[in-house]
């Protein structure tokens, strides 16, 4: 699975908080157009894994790179982070969608989308707004440009958050339980948007508790528990025909 042109490559990742080892030798690669779903019980380290990949936490050990942009190299089991410039460059390769959206409450929907491209990437404002309008239409959010997040439902807010991440054209889009804060009715709309993205071959890494969704949308599924990858494989294999007792027990509990 380790291929030279993987969009995301993480090898032998280790991470502890104090005495607790949260990630124990995790390796994964994601290629162009692939959708990876990460499932597993709460406390298993899924969020920590995403947060390490998105540079919100630092790895203790392991190698992380996005394409040819190297974030860490491993020296004697220690993760050595590259300079500030490399990290800034790495951030242009990915986007992250949070469980609780984290939209900027004081900005309108339009400004939530355009502010980063205009401030960070120096994209002309008119170009950013045109791009934002297109994305909002794809998200089923036409006419919401001038609303502020608190005027939207949770599902709409999450779709704005997805659009905000897409504005920067990430190679890989990470999702950390994007529908866990939503009730079932609102969940549908968000999952539909992610399905559409998968059909357009957006490369994605999705932590989710929606098993049916993971089975339909993901190419590859990782089952994580206790900081290790217990089982992984093609989505249908892992979810319909799990090999390990822990995976089976987890899938039964999720039904």
């Amino acid at each position, binding site marked *: 699975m380790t291929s030279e042109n993987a969009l995301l490559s993480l090898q032998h990742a280790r991470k502890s908080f104090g005495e607790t080892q949260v990630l124990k030798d995790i390796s994964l690669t994601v290629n162009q157009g692939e959708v990876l779903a990460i499932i597993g019980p709460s406390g298993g380290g899924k969020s920590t894994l995403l947060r390490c990949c998105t540079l919100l936490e630092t790895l203790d050990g392991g190698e992380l790179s996005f394409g040819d942009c190297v974030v860490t190299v491993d020296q004697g089991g220690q993760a050595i982070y590259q300079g500030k410039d490399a990290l800034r460059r790495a951030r242009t390769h990915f986007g992250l969608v949070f469980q609780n959206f984290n939209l900027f409450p004081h900005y309108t929907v339009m400004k939530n989308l355009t502010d980063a491209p205009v401030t960070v990437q120096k994209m002309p404002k008119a170009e950013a707004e045109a791009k934002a309008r297109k994305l909002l239409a794809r998200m089923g959010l036409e006419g919401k440009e001038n609303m502020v*997040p608190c005027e939207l439902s949770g599902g709409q807010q999450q779709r704005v958050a997805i659009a905000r991440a897409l504005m920067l054209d990430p190679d890989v889009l990470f999702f950390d339980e994007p529908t866990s804060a939503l009730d079932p009715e609102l969940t549908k709309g968000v999952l539909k948007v992610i399905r559409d993205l998968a059909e357009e071959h957006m490369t994605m890494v999705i932590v989710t508790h929606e098993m049916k969704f993971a089975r339909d949308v993901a190419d590859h599924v990782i089952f994580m528990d206790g900081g290790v990858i217990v089982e992984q494989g093609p989505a249908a294999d892992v979810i319909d025909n799990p090999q390990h007792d822990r995976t089976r027990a987890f899938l039964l509990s999720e039904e």
Partner: protein
Amino acid sequence: MMSLLGSGLVLTGQIFIVTLLGSLPLGVLIALGRMSKFKPLAWLMRAYISFMRGTPLMLQLMALMFGPYYLFGMQLGSDWKFWACDIGFILNYAAYFAEIYRSGIQSIPRGQYEAAEVLGYTKAQTFMRIVLPQVIKRILPAMGNEVITLVKDTSLAFVLGVMEMFTQAKAIAASQVSMLPYIIAAGIYWGFTILVEFILARIEKKLNYYHD
């Protein structure tokens, strides 16, 4: 009498505005220093805030007025009292504002910083564009209290012989043996405060376009 009180009011208003223009931004810097990971700076700012809030403003003003002469033998012109007054008010109010800013900054959820970080904002951009605007909305009521206190604290400038409104009222009252100047001055302070309250309410309403 009214023209004397009026000229006093102009000085009072000047002290008020100059103090806000200086202490509002300075307070942000002190708050950031107070929260700095560089411990010596954090301790220094903490000591500064503690001293400024723990000693009378009147003494601070007098120290600035007379300190340069008694400590260093500096001969400063008769204009120095205006400088001492403005500097003293700015340094003192910045300490109070810093603590209000700090409480506001610490109330912004971590997710806001993380979202900004992933989107590639620099630390400075995150603070100026994402954090500070939200902080301002949250701290407005507490800031309002301080600003209204400042309206009346300007009268402390009398210890420097700055002829602001209270000093004028006192002089007129002494020469006319009358309470009337004090009563009029009180009315003007109150009117000033009502104006400030009105402006604060306008700002609050303007920031009410969202809640979080």
